């Protein structure tokens, strides 16, 4: 319910009248309907403090959620790529047909496709404010980098080791291993893209529901005002 605000001149309740920002100072001015005196609507600084805390908390929460979901989507897609790698690639990094006759392989493929689709859907829904190519590019970079993070770090260490002419034995992923990873990742790109497509519709549905809610709330406020006035 609204906070009480009385006219200092005639004591009329002004809490339900919306303040209009004046042209010079931007103060919320209300003209009392009883005595026509202009009254300024200001919020108490203590209330403003809590409002600011709430808004900052919401923003930080959303930021954390966005980062966590990005991490989860990337991590799950990479996990699925590693899980599918032995089934769809051979030791030389070439594609091989998965053994469909085996009872667990179709189940495994189904699970991988489902989870990757879900990852794409989450990625698009959480980053709905960005354009589609940007979200796709961002996740391709994230997945590509973290898929080969050990290789990238070992390359950096070998570079530094050569620079310092240090004799250090650093293990690095072989080129066939990198090919296998990329191939498995490419195979899962299609369900990821499909998931992103689903995410667009999912996001529209959420926005539609929330806008309906806003319309309902506004209607309720209008009814209450009409009852009071």
């Amino acid at each position: 319910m609204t906070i009480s605000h009385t006219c200092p001149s005639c004591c009329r309740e002004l809490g339900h009248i919306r303040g209009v920002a004046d042209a010079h100072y931007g103060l919320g001015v209300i003209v009392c309907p009883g005595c026509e005196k202009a009254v300024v609507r200001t919020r108490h600084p203590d209330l403003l403090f809590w409002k600011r805390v709430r808004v900052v908390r919401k923003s930080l929460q959303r930021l954390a959620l966005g980062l966590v979901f990005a991490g989860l989507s990337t991590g799950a897609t990479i996990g699925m790529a590693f899980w599918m790698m032995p089934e769809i690639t051979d030791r030389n990094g070439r594609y091989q047909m998965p053994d469909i006759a085996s009872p667990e392989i179709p189940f495994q493929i189904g699970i991988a496709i489902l989870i990757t689709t879900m990852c794409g859907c989450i990625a698009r829904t959480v980053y709905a404010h960005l354009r589609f190519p940007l979200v796709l590019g961002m996740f391709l970079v994230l997945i590509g980098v973290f898929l080969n993070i050990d290789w990238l770090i070992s390359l950096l260490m070998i570079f530094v080791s050569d620079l310092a002419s240090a004799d250090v034995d650093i293990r690095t992923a072989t080129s066939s291993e990198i090919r296998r990873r990329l191939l498995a990742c490419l195979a899962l790109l299609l369900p990821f893209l499909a998931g992103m497509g689903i995410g667009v519709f999912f996001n529209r549905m959420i926005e539609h529901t929330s806008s309906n809610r806003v319309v309902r709330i506004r209607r309720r406020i209008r009814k209450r005002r009409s009852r009071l006035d």
Partner: protein
Amino acid sequence: MSKANSDTQMGHDQIRADRACAGCGFNLYGQSVTKEEHYGLAIARCPECGTVAALQQYPAMSHWVNRFRLILAAIYIFLLFAVFAGSTIGISGFAFAGSRLASENLAGFLMDDLNSWIAAQEASQTATQPLNGLPAPANTVTRFTSSMTPEYMAFGLHDALERYGSLWGTMSREWIVMMVPAVLACAAMGIFWSTALLGATRRRALIVPLVSCLIGGGFIIGANSPDNTYPWVFDYAHQLYIPLMTPLILAIEFVALAIGICVGRMVARFVVRLALPPRARVPLGILWARDGLEMPRP
């Protein structure tokens, strides 16, 4: 005349919104608003406790908002201190491990020298004290030790160090490779400090990692002075390298921290722009305002 009657009963209006009584917290909704006779102020009387509530714009509030502000600030400062302690431990840990790696060549050399010195001592002892006319054993098994004796430290160590040469030129280069994760971690820590210390300019924010490096370095150098009673060869070599390597490694880490602090707010702004829609970015606008930048347009 009672207080209730002293208020001029003008009967202007009723309170038709929420207003808590300053005395008991009772909701004054529905109470009639009157003008008191002395100053003409609009008041309402609480039906529960009888307290007069002046219906001014800023009613008297409790001190709890200020207390909560204080509590929030205290929690934030406590967290910053905890991160400071953690980062100091991390920074000094890298310096400690780096100097250990650098000392490996010297440790290996001293180990060989110690064991050959002990073998020579034992051989000379056997030669000077014949075993009652019996021949010396053909294969003498020498014990392999890594703990230096006081005799070796008094007579053999100085020569060994002279034979080894400069500590700088002969150090193991593995520590340089170990600096890759150290530099990455320090840059990440710099990004954190740059974003957490929004009240300070970048130059002032550099003081925090500088103090962290100084404390870490002082602690490592102070706590690892050479031990002269049966020290392990590896520890002794490490203790020789600590005063040399710790300042160097800490300087490298400080440079990484400084780079992190320089780019930290830029990285934070990039992440916020990427992760939040325009409306949700507004409360975090201090990231832009602090550097005198305008908020990005949607």
